[in-house]
């Protein structure tokens, strides 16, 4: 028994090291003074200064954040509707189709999604003159479509585990469908909406492939700029950028864990 748990600890420990070693190496090398990325030249914040002077990266970051905020919000609205319709509307015509369309983007290779949306935009432009050209608007539509699927899945699983008696009680008391949804269901699934929004935001901010297909020449997103910079080799500025992004996420996740534990504890005390 003892031997087995040692084996387990060592092999699992190696897994965690594997998961974190590259991230830690990246963070350490972002403080490297030397321009040769692999030669250690002492500690320095030089590349962070360079990063903030790089207008191309800053502009792309702003474009990406704007796209991510808008498409995450749209995805939450549409994904919540889809998840709600699929779990609470009973049977209706076309339910199987809607359910298939909602989950399919999850298994669709990004290259196919990107190509097919681009070809759609080009065909639509030829036929109706809209969207004229491609840019942030088309990227937002593309990101909304694939983030919608993630939101719908999260909302669906939350709705399934939700106690239906609250909604039934509201209906017995005469709540109309719209007020039932906005006053009872929506507050109950709010945590799912928050995590759906955050997941969509992250996915949109991170997407390279789909954005490369559907964005216009002037609207490079942050991943597109990073990709073109690192394709030929390691870049110290990107190391600095990566460190900032990773630390932001780490702070967010740690805060979320603490928040969850606090809620959990206060619930325990109440009980």
């Amino acid at each position, binding site marked *: 028994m003892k031997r087995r748990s040692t084996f*387990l*600890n060592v092999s699992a420990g190696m897994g965690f090291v594997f*998961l974190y*070693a590259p991230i830690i190496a990246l963070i350490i090398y972002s403080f490297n003074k030397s321009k040769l990325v692999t030669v250690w030249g002492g500690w320095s914040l030089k590349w962070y200064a360079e990063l903030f002077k790089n207008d191309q990266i800053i502009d792309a970051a702003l474009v990406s954040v704007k796209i991510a905020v808008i498409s995450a919000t749209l995805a939450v609205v549409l994904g919540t509707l*889809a998840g709600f319709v699929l779990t609470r509307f009973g049977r209706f015509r076309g339910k199987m189709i809607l359910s298939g369309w909602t989950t399919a983007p999850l298994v669709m*290779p990004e290259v196919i999604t990107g190509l097919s949306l681009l070809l759609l935009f080009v065909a639509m432009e030829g036929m109706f003159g809209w969207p004229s050209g491609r840019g942030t608007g088309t990227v937002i539509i593309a990101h909304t479509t694939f983030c919608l699927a993630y939101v719908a899945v999260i909302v669906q699983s939350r709705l399934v585990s939700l106690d239906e008696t609250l909604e039934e009680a509201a209906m017995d008391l005469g709540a109309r469908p719209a007020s039932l949804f906005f006053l009872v269901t929506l507050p109950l699934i709010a945590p799912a909406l928050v995590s759906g929004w955050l997941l969509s935001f992250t996915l949109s901010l991170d997407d390279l492939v789909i954005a490369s297909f559907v964005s216009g020449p002037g609207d490079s997103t942050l991943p597109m700029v990073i990709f073109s910079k*690192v394709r030929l080799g390691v870049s110290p500025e990107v190391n600095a950028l990566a460190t900032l992004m990773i630390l932001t996420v780490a702070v967010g996740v740690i805060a979320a864990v603490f928040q969850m534990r606090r809620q959990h504890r206060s619930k325990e005390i109440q009980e």
Partner: protein
Amino acid sequence: MSIIAESVRLTGPTLRALILERLGQIKCGRYAVISIPGLWLAVFFFIPFLVVFKISLAETAIAIPPYTSLFEFDLEEALLEISINLGNYRYLFEDDFYLAAYLNSAKIAAISTFFTLLIGFPMAYLIARSHGTTRTLLLSLVILPFWTSFLLRVYAWMGILQKNGIVNDFLMSIGLIDTPLTILQTDIAVYIGIVYTYLPFMVLPLYTALEKLDGALLEAAQDLGCKPAQTFFLITLPLSLPGVVAGCLLVFIPAVGEFVIPALLGGSDTLMIGRVLWDEFFLSRDWPMASAVATVMLIVLVLPIMLIRNNAEKQGEAA
């Protein structure tokens, strides 16, 4: 008896549906609500595939957009000409390059999935066996990379695996090798990249399955004289099979169509279908050929996966 059963079944969602249906005006609203996400997905998810299929039957042309149209309508002579070009598909099946790319993508994805399972299983097991704060901590350690940029995590390996990178420096300093190994721009780097980026996708479903595992069963097996290895293969593994299947699908599916990992870590000879499609589109600017590659990929790779998934879901619901 059956009447009672019927009336029991009528409560809950069905009863609500009945109430809703009785109010005609609400039924109208019902379809309005359904149609909002429905229309969005029809226009931006379903129709695009029809467009891809249509363009895969066109020919490349030096024009904007760079393909010929399938239908020509001559108003004066009332003549509708339809030209369908199957040349792209013929080329796709005649040239070994494409077949090799499809097979190689499946091979790379399968091998990477196996190693992800191998590394992920002990991690999931350890998390499932730990309690309280340790469990929360380990779980958040697995989830954290999931929220950080995928592109940057792949990029991190470039600095580690390159000729004068950390791995080679380390191996040379301990005297294991004399000259640096070429790891970056080989298939091995692609395997490492896929295993690394998709590890959380494997650990989380495995953890969910292992967490439900009843510890009493393991104790019973031991009391009855099972060796640890036997207990593992007779009890733990079969009972965690749903998690294994879910995890493997979550890794295999995106890995097959992967573009970023072979583009950054693989060599020019690392053949993967996602990359072939990308090059066909962005380098050769052959939109009809790229569409044909996508159509075949959809039929050969995506449809079977969706069927397997649906099947697994149905079985899960039945169980």
